[in-house]
């Protein structure tokens, strides 16, 4: 099969912007994008630069953007890309400086991983159930809870796909937060409280926009966003409730309990009630909405049979199994 691959080239020494270079090659039908790029390097241009090691979706080195999607090149078939997009364009991962061609400087990623202390912190006497001096086996239920987040191979695809990483340099990003949850959910760790308070700040779990890009991109089904949601739940259940995010969830539940539905017009009002200056800021928009007939009443009549919804809410304790 004869194919064409466009590779984004960048040479830090020639002072030029990155540009696509097109390569044509003859390949077997079921070749991966990575093997096709290796073939280009072997047969056509030895200077094409990229990372790879295992060629079998284990080491996490070969992540790049293929037709805009961040993922492993060794886990992506050329035919599938051609079916989906009719062409193959590869670029380095996003949100990190490019060193050369498809290789990025991974420092911003690793700094984030390091900042969450990606190890189980233990101290004699703090978790008596899990003594430090001898081997402690975890019950299966804990292992199950840690299963998703333990699969991470640090490929950075999620970080590249993350929409908040795009606009906020302070955001820790999906992989680091998933790793943080890996430690928070580990019963042997003695720093759960410290971890949760630190990540309760700007850049932590509240700054995720729940776009699911990381869940979609992850080649190992780590579901980083689900881990972020679990961190939020752990935080609220541990008493960290003085945040915009936490208040939003509580008010949301309150309004739905009263009306059966969310009244979006009431939310900003409720959220900013305690801050008169903030309230003033939203007034101009509220006036315009009113003029357009868009401002909902402060109180809606509840939906019929709203009692059923309230009963459901009462029937359940907080944060039960997923």
């Amino acid at each position, binding site marked *: 099969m004869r194919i064409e691959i466009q590779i984004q080239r960048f040479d830090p020494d020639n002072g030029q912007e990155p540009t696509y270079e097109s390569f044509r090659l003859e390949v077997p039908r079921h070749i991966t994008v990575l093997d096709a790029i290796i073939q280009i390097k072997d047969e056509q241009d030895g200077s094409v630069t990229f990372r790879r090691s295992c060629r079998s979706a284990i080491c996490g080195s070969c992540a790049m953007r293929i*037709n*805009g999607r961040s993922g492993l090149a060794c886990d992506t078939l050329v035919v599938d890309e051609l079916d*989906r*997009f009719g062409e193959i364009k590869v670029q380095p991962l996003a949100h990190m400086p490019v060193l050369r061609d498809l290789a990025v400087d991974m420092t911003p990623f690793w700094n984030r991983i390091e900042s969450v202390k990606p190890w189980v912190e233990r101290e004699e006497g703090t978790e008596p159930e899990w003594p430090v001096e001898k081997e402690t086996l975890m019950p299966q239920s804990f292992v199950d809870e840690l299963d998703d987040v333990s699969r991470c191979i640090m490929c950075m695809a999620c970080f590249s796909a993350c929409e*908040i990483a*795009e*606009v*906020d340099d302070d955001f820790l990003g999906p992989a680091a937060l998933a790793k943080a949850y890996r430690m928070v959910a580990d019963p042997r760790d003695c720093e759960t409280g410290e971890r949760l308070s630190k990540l309760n700040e*700007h850049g932590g779990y509240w*700054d995720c*926009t*729940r*776009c*699911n*890009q990381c*869940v*979609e991109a992850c080649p190992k089904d780590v579901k980083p966003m689900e881990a972020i*949601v679990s961190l*939020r*739940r752990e935080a*609220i259940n541990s008493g960290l409730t003085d945040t*915009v*995010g936490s208040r*939003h*969830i509580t008010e*949301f*539940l309150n309004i*739905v309990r009263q009306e*059966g*539905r*969310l*009244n*979006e*017009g009431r939310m*900003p009002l409720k959220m900013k009630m305690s801050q008169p200056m903030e309230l003033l800021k939203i007034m101009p*928009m509220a006036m*315009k*909405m009113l003029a*357009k*007939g*868009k401002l*909902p009443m402060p109180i*809606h009549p509840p*939906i*019929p*049979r*709203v*009692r*059923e*919804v309230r*009963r*459901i*809410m009462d*029937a*359940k304790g*907080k*944060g*039960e*199994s*997923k």
Partner: protein
Amino acid sequence: MSQFKYAYYTGCAAKGVCPELHQSTMAVCRALDIELVELKAASCCGAGVIGELEPDTQLAMNARNLKLAANQGVPMMTVCGTCQGVLARSHQELSDGDTRDRINQVLGNSGGVYDGGPKPRHLLWALIQDYGLARLESKVVQPLHGLKVGPFYGCYMLRPSDYLGFDDPYNPKSLEQVISALGAEPVDYSGRTKCCGFPIVLESESSAMQMVGTNLIEAQDNGAHCLVTPCPLCHMNLDLYQEKAEQEMDREIGLPILHLPQLIGLALGLDPKELGLDKNMVDTDALITEVVGA
């Protein structure tokens, strides 16, 4: 009875801050002879927000919602991308026997036991998979020739694709197909599959406004005269907050944002007022004149 009948799940936005979405949905479905039974007793879907703290409460609320639809004996139709994503996920989780039993205990006498039903579908998907694009095209009386429309899908219509399974999350086609069927021209831009930023607008307004601004400007620079979205929450951020995004990006944008049924309604020759186009924050007058006057 119409050949096409759905249990209509309005969601909160169409009944609150986006009345024009409900209005235009009703008008368009009437014109297309699609019968809607509104699920008036349906509750909020939880929007993923309730599920953050109380996953089982959200699941039980949606078991109740899905049960209300199942009682009608027809599939549930949504008009909100976020509701669609959350309900599709609940529907899938409830297909597991153990989960369903657990949730049915919570449900108890609150609407009766849920024992399965058809998968909920968004108006956009219903039009393609049930109604058919050819039939839709045959109903167009005012083809939107010359109008360039940027599709804006919204996260929950696309991701995670495991729960949804309609469009390719990286290269969706459904909105483009509908735009083309109406005689308009879909505009290609990378923002079409991105997040609108609505979920973090309270947490971090500047991030959210950059997201809005970047998507709008890219679409506009690629020639879009307006955007169309199947999600009222995206609509809120792109339309209601557009002025703030303009400030954040330091550029005038003025790009009208239409709900999916508003765009369809224009092509069906419906009265713009009936479609609630006067309720959109970014002025739609010039757009309407162009469509009607052309």
